[in-house]
């Protein structure tokens, strides 16, 4: 008799969503000067959650000016010890309000509550705690005896981990003495706006954190603003390139964390049951909306059939549906636009002759959904092996020898992450030396920690976030 799990939805009543939101500038919520608004929707139901202000040129000017004034007068001169107090306070407030923030994230983004509750929010708090600890110890971080902040940081973040990406950007910037203007993605602004409220609750001096909302145009106005000293962007390689072109020749500092097409490599001596879990976690975590997702599975030929069979059996147990249900594993695709991109790339996989298999799960009638999908018979030449799909779609390739595994893993314009599965320690080290990826996981995947630097090479960007290395993006020592 089947064990049917009864619905176990997390209560929506812990969040209080306003019907409309202004821009958070200089410690206050203000309307956009143009009065233009756009809507943010729940991707699982297409229900409109709130009207959001679209910041124009005048608003960006105001936000940058507020950040400049706060930098010159308050935050820049403040001692590291005092900055730390604010950051610790923010970290604690995030923890206290984590249930509310997790529900809000799930409503706006579509990710399962299990992930926003157990992964996103604990990491958000951890990033603030970690960087709060650095604020008064920066002279020991290896950036010279007197490392100084850079100034005003313009930060543009994506929709896949809205609050976590905010934490990755704001925590180190503030710890190092910079002030920020941050723009969340247009489809997921709500947790950033809730964070603005946390800044007020923490009595953070006005102007230290400014949150402006809008789409690509707002982002362009922000990163190209002449009074910005530092730009940090996480998002697509396409936009990252445009930002780099725009900033060429200026002395604005830039760090980019862009796309990826990570290889997850399984050798025949791997712990197979855990490797299968690692593959699932690598590509189906957060609906595959993860820049470091293990979207290319490289299997040693001798175990390929066995692993694909196990993987299919495992995908059959994934629970897709209401993201607020505590038992949901796979939530909604974040937007209609992203769903269209996934469908387009999946169609190209069919057209180019790869074999598609999707987990047998029922998709809800409303909202944006895509079932966990595996392509076998994929070659390096297929689009689905080269382009970032950013969805729950795995391309399976095979290899015969370790050298071939390295060659195939590296044969991509990206270089953000990679995974190795083998019980042989020497092979892990041998592979890690040769894989051109910023993060290499061994016998695990998609593990994050604020103390561990994250970032890519090649078209996956440059600069590191997290750890001692990440502080460098927000400091300018004399000898640096």
């Amino acid at each position: 008799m089947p064990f049917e799990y009864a619905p176990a939805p997390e209560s929506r009543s812990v969040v209080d969503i306003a019907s409309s939101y202004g821009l958070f500038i200089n410690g206050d919520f203000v309307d956009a000067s143009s009065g233009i608004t756009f809507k943010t929707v729940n991707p699982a139901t297409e229900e409109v959650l709130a009207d959001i202000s679209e910041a124009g040129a005048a608003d960006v000017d105001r936000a940058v000016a507020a950040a400049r004034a706060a930098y010159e007068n308050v935050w820049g001169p403040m001692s590291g010890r005092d900055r730390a107090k604010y950051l610790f306070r923010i970290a604690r407030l995030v923890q206290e309000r984590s249930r509310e923030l997790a529900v809000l994230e799930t409503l706006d983004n579509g990710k399962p509550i299990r992930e926003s509750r157990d992964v996103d929010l604990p990491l958000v708090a951890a990033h603030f705690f970690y960087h709060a600890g650095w604020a008064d110890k920066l002279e020991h971080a290896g950036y010279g005896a007197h490392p100084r902040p850079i100034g005003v940081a313009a930060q543009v973040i994506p929709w896949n981990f809205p609050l976590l990406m905010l934490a990755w950007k704001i925590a180190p910037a503030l710890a190092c003495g910079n002030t920020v203007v941050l723009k969340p993605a247009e489809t997921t602004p709500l947790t950033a706006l809730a964070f603005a409220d946390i800044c007020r609750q923490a009595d953070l001096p006005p102007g230290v954190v400014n949150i402006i909302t809008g789409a690509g145009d707002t982002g362009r106005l922000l990163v190209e603003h002449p009074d910005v000293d530092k730009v940090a962007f996480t998002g697509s390689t396409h936009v990252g390139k445009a930002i780099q072109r725009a900033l060429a020749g200026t002395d604005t500092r830039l760090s980019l964390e862009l796309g990826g097409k990570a290889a997850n490599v399984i050798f025949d001596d791997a712990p197979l049951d855990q490797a299968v879990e690692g593959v699932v976690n690598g590509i189906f975590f957060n609906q595959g909306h993860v820049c470091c997702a293990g979207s290319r599975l490289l299997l040693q030929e001798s175990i390929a059939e066995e692993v694909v069979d196990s993987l299919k059996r495992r995908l059959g147990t994934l629970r897709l549906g209401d993201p607020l249900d505590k038992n949901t594993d796979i939530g909604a695709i974040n937007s209609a636009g992203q769903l269209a991109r996934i469908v387009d790339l999946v169609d190209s996989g069919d057209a180019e002759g790869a074999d598609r298999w999707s987990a047998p799960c029922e998709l809800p009638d409303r909202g944006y959904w895509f079932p966990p999908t595996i392509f076998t018979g994929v070659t390096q030449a297929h689009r689905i092996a080269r382009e970032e799909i950013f969805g729950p779609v795995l391309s399976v390739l095979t290899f015969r020898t370790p050298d071939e595994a390295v060659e195939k893993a590296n044969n991509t314009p990206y270089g953000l992450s990679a995974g190795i599965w083998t019980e042989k320690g020497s092979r892990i080290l041998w592979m890690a030396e040769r894989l051109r990826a910023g993060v290499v996981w061994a016998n695990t995947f998609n593990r994050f920690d604020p103390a561990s630097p994250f970032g890519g090479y090649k078209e996956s960007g440059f600069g590191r976030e997290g750890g001692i290395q990440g502080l460098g993006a927000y400091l300018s020592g004399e000898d640096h």
Partner: protein
Amino acid sequence: MTRLASIDSLPDANPGSLRRFLHGLPGVDEVGARGRVDALGTRSIKNEAKAWAIDLSIRMVDLTTLEGMDTPGKVRAMCAKAVRPDPTDPSVPSVAAVCVYGDLAATARAAVGDRVHVAAVATAFPSGRASLEVKLADVRDAIDGGADEIDMVIDRGAFLAGEYARVFEEIVAVKEACGTAHLKVILETGELRTLDNVRRASWLAMLAGADFIKTSTGKVTPAATPPVTLVMLEAVRDFRDATGRLIGVKAAGGIRTSKDAIKYLVLVNETVGDQWLVPDLFRFGASTLLNDLLLQRQRMATGHYSGPDYVTID
């Protein structure tokens, strides 16, 4: 798994072939296995699903007393409870079996009749430190007393010394002595220590003819844990794929609350599927778990918690 399924012949008692086979099984990454059970531990089982799981858990209990101070009176009282766990509520199902020492099997059988199974621990339980003749005599004694399930222990010393063939042959001999009685093979995973050993011992027991593989005696800490049970469930799943035979799993020792029991059912459901969610293929070896299941059941029926005085202590 297909690699195992495609093996032409499973190994026999030949020491070399057993060793090659067991050491050729894929390893288990402890961190990954723990991560998997932690993730499944967050499943939220509510309302009708919880009520269903509680009743199923009751039907899967091997109600156990394995103390030096056991008396016929104690065993008879426990047997009454096994047959009718909640005297105030006839809708509560009987447990799967009572589990006692071999010398009390006859007392238990007389008390339960054929309403529940009688399991007896045997083979010099819990340490297994006796000669094969003594162990077989222990088994025959229990069966003569009326036990229809035998819970044997493996020789952990021989297993850890790599003498797999010895362990294998002992299980084969005990299975033969069991006749039609069901054989549960206790791996005592708390003494095997690594999950690699748990996987190998599981396969060894299944190859030798176990009907059930069981985590623990309950006399060693840790007893049953979710990671160990996960690995054993993976083993019975792979053994089914290789041979078509269904082997049961019994998690014994340390499972005291309904919440824990439901976590184990989730583990079964999402590892081997609902085919195993029957008392013939999954059991809890426990003494105190039953009362918590009954309290939770009363709570769900009445909407409020009663208290320990509202369930019987037998």
